[in-house]
């Protein structure tokens, strides 16, 4: 199989684009495609300061690499969650540090949840009698910290490494349950609805997960390969597999499912009134909350011995 651009041996065949590329041309193609996505959805400009949420995984490190290559002011944020008594977090942080050490003039910061708030993510989840699942507590904590860092650092937006497969798996689950609230909000760009809530962008939404994995490999980016222990067996993986089977029969199905969803909404497909609930400022941290008083993040720590 030959590269369409130069005729050398292809390293990847992307049936969804009827495109086979050699290593060199694949390494050119990925940043071009990400740049087109950034432009298409007006995510940000070279004048903006961007905060990249990095986990040590292939997608977030690949995203950061591409943004730096494209010349954006992209700083990294690693949130140390304290997973698996810290072992998983230490390992994933190691990949981020290695990425940084291989590049010059790259800015990044670490927020250590336990050092900052007194307990790690699994520890907080454990102390909550209601039995909140670790992943939902984790999501809540990460969102809060990202918004705080973005606000304090004057960032124009937070960029995350969600790829097409991530988005399509969520879309599929939301459609199957007609979760209209979620469907109304699922988008490559989430505008800031409050001064303390950062704009969120997903520059990899047009890239297949196969493409982001191949990019990390070919580009020589070392990343944490093992799943977060709490994500093992996650339903997302089941839906990804289902969609990959569909894709096998009909190359391009995932991309067209996603793009036609966005298009339909643009053309007026509506999921009811998107009327936003009144937002109050949390009396403790200042981030918005739907009920007056403390926000969900601050309530999480209430009454806990924070050492």
């Amino acid at each position, binding site marked *: 199989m030959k590269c369409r651009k130069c005729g050398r041996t292809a390293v990847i065949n992307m049936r969804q684009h009827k495109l086979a590329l050699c290593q060199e041309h694949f390494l050119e193609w990925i940043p071009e495609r990400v740049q087109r996505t950034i432009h298409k959805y007006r995510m940000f400009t070279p004048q903006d300061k961007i905060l990249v949420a990095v986990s040590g995984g292939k997608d977030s490190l690949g995203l950061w690499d591409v943004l730096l290559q494209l010349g954006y002011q992209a700083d990294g944020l690693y949130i140390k969650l304290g997973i698996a008594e810290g072992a998983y977090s230490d390992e994933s942080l190691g990949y981020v540090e290695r990425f940084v050490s291989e590049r010059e003039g790259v800015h990044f910061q670490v927020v250590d949840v336990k050092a900052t708030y007194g307990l790690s993510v699994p520890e907080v989840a454990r102390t909550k009698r209601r039995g909140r699942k670790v992943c939902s507590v984790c999501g809540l904590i990460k969102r809060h910290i990202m918004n705080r860092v973005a606000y304090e650092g004057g960032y124009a937006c937070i960029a995350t490494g969600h790829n097409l497969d991530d988005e399509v798996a969520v879309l599929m689950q939301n459609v199957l349950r007609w979760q209209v609230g979620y469907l109304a909000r699922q988008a490559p760009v989430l505008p800031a609805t409050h001064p303390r809530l950062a704009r969120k962008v997903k520059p990899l939404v047009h890239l297949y997960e196969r493409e982001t994995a191949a990019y990390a490999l070919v580009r020589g980016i070392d990343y944490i390969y093992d799943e977060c222990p709490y994500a093992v067996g996650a339903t997302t993986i089941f839906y990804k*597999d289902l969609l990959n089977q569909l*894709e096998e029969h009909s190359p391009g199905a995932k991309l067209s499912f996603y793009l036609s969803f966005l298009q339909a909404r643009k053309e007026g497909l509506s999921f009811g009134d998107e009327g936003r609930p009144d937002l109050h400022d949390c009396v403790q941290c200042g981030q918005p909350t739907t009920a007056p008083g403390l926000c969900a993040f601050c309530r999480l720590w209430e009454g806990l011995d924070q050492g």
Partner: protein
Amino acid sequence: MVKLIYRKKVWEVKPGMTVRDAILKTGLKPYAVLAVRDGKLVNEQTILRDGDEIKLVAVVSGG
């Protein structure tokens, strides 16, 4: 013979077949893995040679 390695599992297949056919023999799904030979990504139509060692890398992650 050709060795295929995925996490801690190892399979042996005959040379001469394509990467895709070899992956199918292991029971893994070709869409769920990438194949690496001598540290380089190879496309799924690549013909395997005697003595090749192919590392299979999972594409899908959760979360």
